[in-house]
């Protein structure tokens, strides 16, 4: 058995670690690229959303390397994502690309449900080993998240354009290379040092912008056209509303770990605008805009794949949040036709808008 999974940002780091720990063969697909998208868009229905197209692309590319089992998350509720694993499997079958499919759905009642599904891959390996593997994977996710968040602080203040990107790549590779739970802490320390070594101007004034919205387009830089990097280089400190490790704790561990940021904080403040589940992260998206506004952020940018229903609901509510809180918001919709140049123009204009607002505020208070 050779297991593979779709790309979603740095998710490959923890997943790879888990499988290796369990001595399961794993093949990581090549990073999402134009080729991935071309393959996916060609073989997926036109009106499917970007994540599905990229997933299909990932699976086709990695088949060339001998993968035979797909592990994928499922979902429930009104969002189509719940069906994606199955639909993708059918599309692959039609293409005569054979895969065994294992869908990990968020447990409805008890973590045991999840473990049963994991059994399909882990076979008769002892439970304690499986649980240790999950813990190890989770720690890797925590580590990559920490490094990514460091890059948010450093990039807008870097003295040499591109220095943060180079450091980030090296630092993530350090974490990726750590080959056991024992060597991970030291690797994380080295990664931190690499990031801290980037020369910065601590006193440079920066704007703070949150990127919020749909999980896949938020996490996968290919899908969001490297929005975090572009904003950073425009002198903007970003924060992302969903980090992988937080999501794992919220949805797979059902919030078991207590001292972790949770999307609960978003759902709590969403209620005057939207107080029921609309699928996906619609509710959290609305709530996150409120939350970031209260944290004093200068603006928020919602990202979603074209045709994403829960996010369209959220999009229609965001103007009201913006009016009430005074924090500007902008929505960017991604599909295979989105051009990077057009996005940069919009980002620049949005950042200009925030700058002028900031200056006005300062002029009024000083």
């Amino acid at each position: 058995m050779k297991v593979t999974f779709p790309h979603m940002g740095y998710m490959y780091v923890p997943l790879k670690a888990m499988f290796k720990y369990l001595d399961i063969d794993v093949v990581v697909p090549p990073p999402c690229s134009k080729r991935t998208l071309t393959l996916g868009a060609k073989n997926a229905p036109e009106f499917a959303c970007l994540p599905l197209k990229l997933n299909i692309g990932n699976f086709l590319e990695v088949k060339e390397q001998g993968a035979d089992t797909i592990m994928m998350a499922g979902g429930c509720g009104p969002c189509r994502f719940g069906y994606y694993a199955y639909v993708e499997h059918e599309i692959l079958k039609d293409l005569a690309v054979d895969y065994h499919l294992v869908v990990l759905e968020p447990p409805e009642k008890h973590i045991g449900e999840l473990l049963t599904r994991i059994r399909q891959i882990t076979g008769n390996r002892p439970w304690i080993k499986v649980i240790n593997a999950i813990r190890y994977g989770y720690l890797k996710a925590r580590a990559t998240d920490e490094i990514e968040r460091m890059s948010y602080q450093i990039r807008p203040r870097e003295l040499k354009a591109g220095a943060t990107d180079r450091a980030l790549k090296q630092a993530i590779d350090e974490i990726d290379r750590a080959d056991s739970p024992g060597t991970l802490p030291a690797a994380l320390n080295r990664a931190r040092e690499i990031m801290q070594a980037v020369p910065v101007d601590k006193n440079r004034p920066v704007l703070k912008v949150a990127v919020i919205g749909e999980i896949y387009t938020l996490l996968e830089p290919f899908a969001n056209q490297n929005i975090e990097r572009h904003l950073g280089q425009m002198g903007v400190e970003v924060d992302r509303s969903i980090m992988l490790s937080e999501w794992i704790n919220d949805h797979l561990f059902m919030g078991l770990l207590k001292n972790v940021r949770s999307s609960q904080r978003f759902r709590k403040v969403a209620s005057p605008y939207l107080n029921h589940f609309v699928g996906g992260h619609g509710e959290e998206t609305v709530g996150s805009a409120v939350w970031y506004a209260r944290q004093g952020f200068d603006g928020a940018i919602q990202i979603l794949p074209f045709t994403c229903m829960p996010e369209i609901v959220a999009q229609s509510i965001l103007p009201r949040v913006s009016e009430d809180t005074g924090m500007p918001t902008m929505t960017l919709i991604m599909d295979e036709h989105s051009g990077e140049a057009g996005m940069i123009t919009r980002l620049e204009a949005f950042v200009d808008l925030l700058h002028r607002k900031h200056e006005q505020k300062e002029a009024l208070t000083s």
Partner: protein
Amino acid sequence: MKGYLGIDVGSVSTNIVFMDDDTNVLESLYLRTNGQPVATVQRGLRQIREALPQQTVIRGVGTTGSGRQLTGIVVGADAVKNEITAHAVAASHLVPGVQTVLEIGGQDSKIIILRNGVVADFAMNTVCAAGTGSFLDQQASRLNIAIEEFGDLALQGKTPVRIAGRCAVFAESDMIHKQQMGFNLEDILAGLCEALVRNYLNNVGKGKEILAPVAFQGGVAANAGMRRAFERALGMEVIVPKYFNVMGAVGAALLAKEAVARGVPTRFKGFGVADMEYKAGSFECDGCPNLCEVIEMAEAGKIIARWGDRCGKWSNAVSVEQTAGSVS
């Protein structure tokens, strides 16, 4: 004489203005970009140089439009700004107190909402509202009327025909249908203007609060039929500012003025740029599966800019100074 240059390089057209110290636009040029932004800008600079008195001093240069970065590097710009900011700056200069800017060009359309002189919100076209200007051009030539007459003919339409304007493809086939049914040309043209305005307001202006004064700019603003259709749809007066078709360049010049007002000397390389040799080359990077088509620009044999790479490996390597200084 002293003044500022504003250069707006779009995919279809390139506009250059010269603005004197008192912000009067003394020269303005409209050129077709024809896929050659640098050569077009050079041609424009030559024309401007000839039109201006010998001892003119350029105190600052601003660029905008999709070719802003490249042109900024080539000419040595003091301000490199996106077209939304540039249009907003120009509109609030020419239409005092403006609160809404409707902008429709050949390929792009946008709406900008200003409050207290500051951009408060904006939107750019989605695919379906793109190309209004080119679409009007196309229909004019299909109907065998000069584009300049289009607007006046549309104004004569007494009972505009309802045309399905969801997108250009629908609009065209519906127009042909209405023609075959025997409606008169004026009413069809008036109906087309109304359909395009509906389409714009639904796709671009969606959800935005449109308050007066409203400025209507971009090439399409020359069309009186479109202006009247906006006035009828919005129920308010729509102002077409004096330099409506070169507003991006006007804004860029104003931004350049603002930039050098802080006391920094201009980075303008001089009109000699018009006679320099620029060469664009390209190569495919095989550093990763993206296989980016990287384009590079050489000035007299020396690489001055690279772009087109997703990862920044190539662009970061040459344009360090420009990326750091391009915003704010």
